[in-house]
């Protein structure tokens, strides 16, 4: 038999035999759905060659709660309670685009005071969300102390939110045409003194100072750390064109160097009255994604400080009909949520419940970059990338 083979084929056969002998099959490992670093129930089916990722397939859907469908059998005011729980780390911010969408369809003018309160609370939600990121990210890289420090400061923000709305995570505070009036009252001028709790403004000012202080603390504790930089700089670089192609938004997009912030481009809240910088990164690596969020805490504190200096007086709610019926039509409102662009597409057939409510959540699109971005990384880098994308599974699956 061997005589019939030409030398090249024979060499090939022997090579195959050797490589069969020496083959080191890759390992397929399930990261999640129960795993310390997958922020809930994300599952990554990763094919590893040693510690290097050959291929990875994210599996989502473990957290699907059917909010879009549930919304179709609820009246508009009832939906607020649902959308709070989409991205539970920044519950308040989820309500805003929905309210604005309904108000636009109903052509309601929201009073300036309600707008200002919405804006303050949205920025507080942004701070609290980013503090969760700043606490959990070093933990995922192995440093456990920043977790406690950042969460301790977040408590001050949550107390502020609780003071106004009564809820720490799920305020359910927005009403169509404004915000929830003080207990026991309608939208009358008499109750005005009670809408923000006493001392709220001064406490907020003090809390904002604390936020700036914790940002400086994080700078000295984490940002400057050699090991932290070695673990994050140049890791999982997402180029700007790719980020745009995948629909990445929010801090993740800005970290790639695209200065796109819906607070500037949309007018869902009166951001044009306040000064703030759109923070961008340079390289689009994990370190930039961390740095952008750290800087955004400072910017959010800056916005809040400006906003509390001049809260307009006036009613908290516009005049709205007792039974809310949205005129026939459709609209899409998007907002700059802490995790990225969040949008609600409402189709109304003129009734009390939406005909269709499509939710565009930031984390879903941000996560879609995983199979591309994870290829060729090491196992520890998977965690570094996952953490730096700052997603919650509730926001992915809805």
């Amino acid at each position, binding site marked *: 038999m061997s005589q019939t083979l030409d030398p090249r084929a024979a060499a090939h056969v022997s090579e195959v035999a050797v490589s069969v002998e020496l083959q080191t099959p890759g*390992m397929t*490992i399930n990261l999640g759905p129960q*795993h*310390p*670093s997958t922020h809930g129930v994300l599952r990554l089916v990763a094919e590893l060659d040693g*510690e290097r990722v050959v291929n990875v397939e994210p599996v989502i859907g473990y957290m699907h709660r059917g909010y879009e469908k549930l919304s179709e059998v609820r009246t508009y005011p009832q939906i607020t309670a649902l959308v709070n729980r989409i991205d539970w780390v920044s519950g308040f911010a989820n309500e805003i685009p929905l309210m604005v969408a309904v108000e636009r369809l109903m052509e309601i003018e929201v009073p300036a005071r309600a707008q200002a309160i919405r804006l303050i609370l949205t920025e507080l939600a942004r701070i609290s969300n980013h503090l969760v990121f700043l606490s959990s990210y*070093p*933990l*995922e*890289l*192995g*440093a*456990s*102390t920043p*977790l*406690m*420090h950042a969460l*301790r400061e977040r408590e001050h923000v949550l107390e502020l939110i609780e003071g106004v709305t009564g809820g720490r995570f799920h305020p359910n505070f927005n009403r169509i045409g404004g915000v929830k009036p003080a207990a026991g009252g309608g939208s009358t001028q008499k109750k005005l003194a009670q809408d923000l709790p006493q001392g709220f403004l001064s406490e907020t000012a003090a809390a904002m100072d604390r936020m700036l202080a914790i940002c400086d603390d994080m700078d000295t*504790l*984490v940002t400057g*750390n050699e*090991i*932290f930089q*070695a*673990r994050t700089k140049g890791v999982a670089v997402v180029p700007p064109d790719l980020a745009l192609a995948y629909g990445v938004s929010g801090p993740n997009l800005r970290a790639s160097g695209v200065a796109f912030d819906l607070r500037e481009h949309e007018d869902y809240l009166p951001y044009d009255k306040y000064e703030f910088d759109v923070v961008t990164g340079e390289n689009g690596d994990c370190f930039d994604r961390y740095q952008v969020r750290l800087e955004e805490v400072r910017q959010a504190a800056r916005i809040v400080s400006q906003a509390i200096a001049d809260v307009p007086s006036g009613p908290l709610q516009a005049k709205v009909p007792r039974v809310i019926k949205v005129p026939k039509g459709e609209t899409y409102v998007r907002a700059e949520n802490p995790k990225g662009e969040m949008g609600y597409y409402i189709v109304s057939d003129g009734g009390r419940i939406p005909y269709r409510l499509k939710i565009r959540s930031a984390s879903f699109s941000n996560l879609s970059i995983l199979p591309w971005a994870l290829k060729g990384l*090491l*196992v*520890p*880098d*998977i*965690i570094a990338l996952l953490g730096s994308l700052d997603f919650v599974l509730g926001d992915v699956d809805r």
Partner: protein
Amino acid sequence: MIPLVAVEINFYLLLVLKILAITGVMLGGSLPIIFGELKISAHMQSRVGPYYAGGRWGWAQPMADGLKFFQKEDLVPAAADRQVYKLAPYLLMVSTLAVFVIIPFSPDLIAADLDLGIFFALAISSLSTLGVLMAGWSSGNKYSLIGGLRAAAQIIAYELPLVLAVIGVVIQAGTLSMVGIVEAQIDMGVPFLIGGQAVAFVIFFIASLAELNRTPFDLPIAESELVMGYLTEYSGFRFTTFFLAEYAGVVAISAIASTLFLGGYGFWGLDSALFGPFVLAAKVGILAFLMIWIRWTWPRMREDQLQTLAWKWLIPISLANIMVTAIFKVVF
């Protein structure tokens, strides 16, 4: 070698006594350090830490934790290699315990003052690799396997700078015996940390952190990546053994480092025979605090960075250190 009492003691009785004493030292050393870690980390993180167990300061928390683990079921995964899985924690424990044999608490208070003292310690502590690798391999869990292999790669890489750092000390002291090394420092008047081996001390300390799998080298049990690495499947008593071995390792390595670099039981103006054990304990406490401090401050390195640090930095520097020490030894 211990003239505990003037009368001659039966060999086997002495053996049992020594074994009990070493186990006691191991426990007496580890429990305070576990407690210290609980409390110190709590204070670093604006927490209170253990508060109730035992009354004041929650001092009994480590014991309570240990008792809790005793009550838990000792699970063996169906896919595990049963015998290897069951043996692994003890192998690790034995390798850590054996190191205590050569630690001198005072000129006479030492279980065995071997001529090869430090060599014995380094050799026997390498056995811990085997325990970790066995645990990772036999668990039948992919996370455990990765953790075990990481540990093996790490310990092999850091064993070298550890040994090379010690060689500098051995050259300067002119002996491998632990008591001899301490006496050399007492004769010189300053510990080796000041007296010429500062670089070696830093290298030894870094390498020992890696040896103990502590932050920033805790890759084998990297919780956010590998769940608990090679410890993932362990529970109950066997987990306690691993846990205790880790802290006993902290005590052992700190004691060796104190002996080699900080003057061991000796301190200016204190009688070694009388105060030796307390002086050593204080030095061990300082080093252990340093380890705890680092653990709760720094993030974790990556495998390739860890190997780079060992092969490209620590080993060349420690080789240079040996050369410089040797030149000084010959010239002066």
